[in-house]
């Protein structure tokens, strides 16, 4: 038998909060990915060199905010999605998995933030 025990309020709050974070970050990513792809498409069509692109974005706070939000949304979205994949495909869940995924979120935020800083800062 694999019927779940009655769920605690804390579990329900956590799962609902994660679901909300997943959906909200997806909305942000939908916008960010479209803007990012349009920008890349534009840059390629213009035949811009890496140097020319860097020249345009370096020191621009607007791009820093845009890509900072992009990185934050990805850092939230990816680990929650991976959590569902691990639970469904690998049968892996619980506190250990959640801790590892928090580390993954931190790593995504750190590496992404570093990239944003390197290009725009």
């Amino acid at each position, binding site marked *: *038998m*694999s*019927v*779940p*025990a*009655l*769920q*605690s*309020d804390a*579990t*329900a*709050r*956590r*799962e*609902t*909060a*994660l*679901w*909300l974070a997943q959906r909200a970050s997806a909305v942000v990513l939908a916008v960010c990915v479209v803007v990012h792809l349009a920008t890349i498409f534009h840059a390629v069509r213009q035949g811009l060199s890496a140097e020319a692109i860097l020249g345009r974005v370096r020191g621009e706070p607007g791009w820093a905010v845009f890509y900072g939000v992009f990185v934050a949304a990805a850092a939230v979205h990816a680990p929650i999605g991976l959590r*569902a994949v691990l*639970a*469904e*495909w690998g049968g892996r*869940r619980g506190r250990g998995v959640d801790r590892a995924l928090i580390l993954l979120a931190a790593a995504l935020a750190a590496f992404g933030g570093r990239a944003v800083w390197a290009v725009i800062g």
Partner: protein
Amino acid sequence: MKARERTTLAVDIWRGGVHGRLQRYDVPRSGSQTVLDVVTHIQRRLDPTLAYRYACRVGMCGSCAMTVNGVARWTCRTHVDKVAVDGGLELRPLANLPVIRDLVCDMGEFFDKWAAAGGRFESRRTRRDAVMRVAPDSPARRAVDAAIECIGCAVCYASCDIVTARPDYLGPAALNRAWTLVNDVRDGAPRARLAAVAGDAGCHACHTQAGCTERCPKGLAPTASIAGLKRAATRALLRGEL
């Protein structure tokens, strides 16, 4: 030879428990023959050891569901003409449930999940109170109407890929039942029910693939009910009521 000109139907039926094999029976065709008619013919005329379940034969009781040519269906209202492939049928027990024997599954897990999802009405009133009036055209009552006709056949449960991937997932039928109670203004345990359905094997595990809605023989939309539960749980969380 066209299917409708055939005089017999080749029927392969699962025999055994978890381990078993398909056994072939040849069944005479007749007009407006249902899949349940075919199974009943086999059990009464060809092989009395065949185990299967049915009760009402008219689409009310929800006990005759089986896997027909790979798809979960209510067999009493499924015409052979509509589902036979090359003049044949392959019948297996429902997926996602433990097989007892032949076409019979253990439904205990399925109904235990209704209880785990808070599927029982909790009254706020006593027998001394007057009957509560519910406006039939209120949005909450309309939401109940859209989901209430479930007959508990488990076709949705057998068609759900999430149940296959996560065996403790409450499943479409139990969550659909909970949604009818979340919208029941007479109910006295809304908070406990939302906590029960919003856990880690509850409504948020649904991927909205809508296999349940596609296959529900009553034309219900458990996917919409589950989406409603997600919204209700999120609203409760944001209001600090979860």
